[in-house]
């Protein structure tokens, strides 16, 4: 757990350092090439502590971040925090929607496939899944848009909709685009690990003692199979985040992802820093939760930690 906290700190340092690595003075980077008069420049230099040593700057920046002060957005002439606040909802909704899809469909398909190991259908299905998981969200997004929105006119294109049901309707295609490849990935991993668990000797022992098949599967096979599934969930979380950026851009949703892209293009560095930091923090937190869950599910991990 300490390691994860260190990682978060180190990541924030990397994000912060980009401003130093970028060509030009830090102030120039922050302004994104915009011109200001000398007086304003001096004021800004003092406010952002650019005159102080690098590590001290980092310290100030970190303290600000912890207090919720993410700096000021050049392009929007507002604090970064409020700009982000105004655009966070669509991203959260999209993320949640896609997560539900991935978990529900992916796990279900994986479990069903593992329990019924067929022959032909398996090969075909798994081949299809291989293809599906090769397609990045923006490609599937575009294909989905074209097929469902343009050709069939089942779904609206490029808008967010009103009200809860309207939102769900409008977010369906984007969520599917985002979830598609990852669902296939989760399904494959679930299927593989559950199949393996079902073949383990202790599952056979349980059967030999007369336990019901369903109980054997739930109590023994599932728990063991869950470990690799948990691992891949951490990875999938990362892809959901970066995929959200692509999907928002593809579908014209004004969430944090498209804000990120806009800010890069409009050279609004503070916003870019803030969003990257937030996304990374979320990713690391999710992985931290995964690590904690490992210990709950598999007592052997706890033994290892106690031992060392």
């Amino acid at each position: 757990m300490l390691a994860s906290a260190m990682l978060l700190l180190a990541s924030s340092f990397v994000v912060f350092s980009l401003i130093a690595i970028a060509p030009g003075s830090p102030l120039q980077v922050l302004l994104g090439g915009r011109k200001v008069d000398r007086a304003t420049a001096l004021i800004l230099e003092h406010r952002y502590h650019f005159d102080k040593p690098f590590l001290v700057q980092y310290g100030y920046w970190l303290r600000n971040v912890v207090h919720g002060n993410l700096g000021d957005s050049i392009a929007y002439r507002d604090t970064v925090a409020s700009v982000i606040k105004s655009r966070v909802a669509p991203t959260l909704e999209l993320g949640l929607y896609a997560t539900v899809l991935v978990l529900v469909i992916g796990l279900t398909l994986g479990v069903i496939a593992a329990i019924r190991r067929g022959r032909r259908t398996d090969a075909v299905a798994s081949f299809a899944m291989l293809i599906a998981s090769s397609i990045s969200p923006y490609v599937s997004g575009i294909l989905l848009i074209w097929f469902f929105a343009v050709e069939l006119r089942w779904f609206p294109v490029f808008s967010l909709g009103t009200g809860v049901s309207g939102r769900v309707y409008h977010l369906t295609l984007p969520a599917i685009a985002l979830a598609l490849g990852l669902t296939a990935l989760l399904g494959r991993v679930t299927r593989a690990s559950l199949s393996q668990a079902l073949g383990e000797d202790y599952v056979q022992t349980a059967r030999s003692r007369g336990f019901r098949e369903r109980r054997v599967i739930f109590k023994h096979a599932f728990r063991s199979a869950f470990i690799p599934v948990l691992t891949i969930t951490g990875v999938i979380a990362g892809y959901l985040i970066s995929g959200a950026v692509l999907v928002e851009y593809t579908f014209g949703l004004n969430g944090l992802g498209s804000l990120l892209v806009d800010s890069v293009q409009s050279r609004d560095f503070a916003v870019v820093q803030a969003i990257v930091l937030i996304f990374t923090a979320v990713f690391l937190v999710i992985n931290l939760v995964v690590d904690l869950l490992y210990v709950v599910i598999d007592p052997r991990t706890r033994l290892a930690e106690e031992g060392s």
Partner: protein
Amino acid sequence: MSFLRVRNLVTELRDNGGYTRVVRDVSLDVERGEFVGLVGESGSGKSMTARSIVRLLPPGAKSRGDVVLDGTSILDLAPSQLRDVRVHRMSMIFQDPRASIDPLYRCGDHLFDALHNLMGMKRVAARRRALELLTDVGIADPQWVYRSYPDELSGGMLQRVMIAGALASEAGFLIADEPTTALDVTIQAEIMAILEGLRKEKQLATLFITHDLELASMICDRILVMYAGLIVEGQTTAGIFTTPQHPYTAGLLRARPHLEHRRDRLEVIPGRPPRADEVPDGCPFSPRCAFIKPECTLRPPAVNEVSPGRFSACWRSAELADRLTP
């Protein structure tokens, strides 16, 4: 009528489109309180025979024949009836205890789960019984073992836990599938001692499976020798070692190194056992047999009772009696 009566058991495994016969026609009996050893090399079909009796075969496998346990025909049972038999009337211990006990749960749970959920004991009673069972198998600190995870215990300890688990069901019939193969030789002796103790106490009918003829002789009343899916010989333990009835058994005995008689080379049986899919016509041992005659390749061997209690699948047993004696 024997407690366990198996007649003409045949088991086939599914294998890339076809079926391979791994148990070719096995018949055996086990009485209450009797330890019968089923001895054979890897691939001889001994494990598959045991699994056919408890119906723990891989998907797609088929069995036929007669398997009757205390009056109940096992192969005809419906799934829920089979489960019932597994809970109350037969139990099995496996070769590698570390692989056969779920590593994610405590050892106590391995026992508690069956006692409480399968046999309907109340929680407190189940826990108490579990601790009793652990003591029965010679564990000095049952509370600690109850709380521990399999990772924290040695192989020998785990095997005791597995035996305790098998005893929990108070079954009359036990199959021990190579229970000491995965363990150190010193631990092996301890486990065998436990099984010996159980034999005296519980009068279990036990089928003891091993590749080690000497090990079987330590505890078994009778020994059945298997080769290529068939039982080629069956006698009392003493009989097997003094007057083997089958060339294969004789070969095995002769191949043992001796401390007393020094020889220049170890004796071996030439060749190797056939894989399940390459068993020859006639007697499966014939290609390696020193006493082969043309008739051996024509008809598959029939197990005949050479003298009371002594069975052999070699039609020349009586004739070869002296030459087979080590």
